[in-house]
């Protein structure tokens, strides 16, 4: 965990300026879909493990191009490499996709408040992801599966654009093959040969097998998707204080100083990106923010 003081951020036991990136070396780049890719990074010097909580993010700096906030998509229990998954949609992420093994990258972090994996112990866990939103939730899934006996039913509901846009497809198939987790996938637009579900991800909520009285739900995806999903979960009987979602804003400093990611009274980078639904509900439907 990280904590902010006036001058320094204490990260992983070592003090350093929160604005100073560490150098990391690209170990592997995996192409996930047409525009999504995963970077596996290792420290350029030394072998200290990179500790983080599921749901936290890093600021990744492509030298000479710029810096962007990217959620960590790797296993919080397996700290040999630092794993990020994102889409190539802007100058920085396109440059990031062009990186190859051995290239260097700057990393600041981890920042922010993660998913409530400790509070969810003893509960059913429902993970609802839309599109690339599965990436920030994957560390939670790793954590829950690594500590499977601490949780009740585990349900993953995933919606994306087309079958070709399914993120971590092989991993979803492997999880679905397990007997202790339920995985449901739906696409907005089917293509030839797709025999799975078609329709928006909220359609999966009414039939998902969980006990509404003892469930913690975690949602990540486009904001409209999260808003409608939260409403559907409430309709199923989950209280708003048991629903969590991950907000995305234009984060720059990562420590709540610059104000770029301010959302109402909260700074997404420092107070989030994961918020309890009842704390953020009003802001989700306010178009001025």
């Amino acid at each position, binding site marked *: 965990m990280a904590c902010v003081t006036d001058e320094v951020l204490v990260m992983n036991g070592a003090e350093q300026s929160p604005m100073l990136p560490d150098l990391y070396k690209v170990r592997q780049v995996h192409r996930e879909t047409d525009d999504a890719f995963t970077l596996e990074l290792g420290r350029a010097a030394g072998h200290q493990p990179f500790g983080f909580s599921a749901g936290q993010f890093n600021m990744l700096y492509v030298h000479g191009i710029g810096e962007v906030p990217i959620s960590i998509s790797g296993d919080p229990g397996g700290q040999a490499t630092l794993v990020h998954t*994102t*889409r190539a*949609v*802007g100058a920085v*992420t396109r440059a990031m996709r062009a990186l190859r093994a051995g290239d260097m990258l700057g990393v600041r972090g981890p920042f922010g408040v993660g998913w409530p994996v400790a509070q969810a112990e003893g509960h059913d866990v429902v993970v609802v992801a*839309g*599109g*690339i*939103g599965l990436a920030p939730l994957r560390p939670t899934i790793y954590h829950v599966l690594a500590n499977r006996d601490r949780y009740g039913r585990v349900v993953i509901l995933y*919606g*994306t*654009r087309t079958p070709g*846009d399914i993120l971590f497809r092989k991993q979803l198939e492997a999880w679905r093959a397990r007997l202790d987790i339920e995985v449901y996938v*739906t696409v*907005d*637009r*089917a293509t*030839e040969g*797709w*025999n*799975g*579900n*078609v*329709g*928006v991800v*909220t*359609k999966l909520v*009414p*039939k998902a097998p969980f006990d509404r009285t003892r469930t913690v739900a975690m949602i990540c*995806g*486009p904001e*409209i*998707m999260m808003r*409608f999903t939260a409403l559907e979960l409430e309709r199923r009987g989950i209280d708003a204080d048991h629903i969590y979602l991950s907000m*995305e804003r234009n984060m720059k400093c990562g420590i709540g100083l610059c104000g770029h990611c301010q959302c109402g009274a909260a700074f997404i980078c420092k107070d989030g990106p994961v918020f309890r639904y009842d704390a953020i509900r009003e802001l989700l439907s306010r178009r001025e923010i």
Partner: protein
Amino acid sequence: MHTLEPILAEHPFLKGLRQEHLALLVGCASNVRFEAGAFVFRQGQEANHFFILRDGKVAVEAFAPQKGAVAIDTYGEGDVLGWSWLLPPYRWRFDARAVEPTRMISLDARCMRTKCENDHDLGYELMKRFAGIIEQRLDATRWQLLDLYGVRD
């Protein structure tokens, strides 16, 4: 003798329906089964049934030249299939095809329309339930039109 009444009573779409209304529905109901790949109905055909899904999966498809059949939506256990039987000209607007072996209860449309005309309480109750389904599907369609997953980041 077993009737379909307990199955209908437990289905999410009909849950809470009054006993006498359920009894009226049973008179219009029959069990049907479709193998994977079989058409439940075809676009342009008379919409003379609607379906309560028990298990399996059905895709609603549109066929376009050069594109072939495109699945627009899928329905499974607990869903309802078809509302073209409600409004003239009572013709299906899309194709529906079983994606996997599917068991449903088929409700005869003429029978249902007659019973709804004769018992407006039943008709109103069913219309409310179908309005809820139509609202959900309209919301889902609007959301799909937004193409949300294509714009994140």
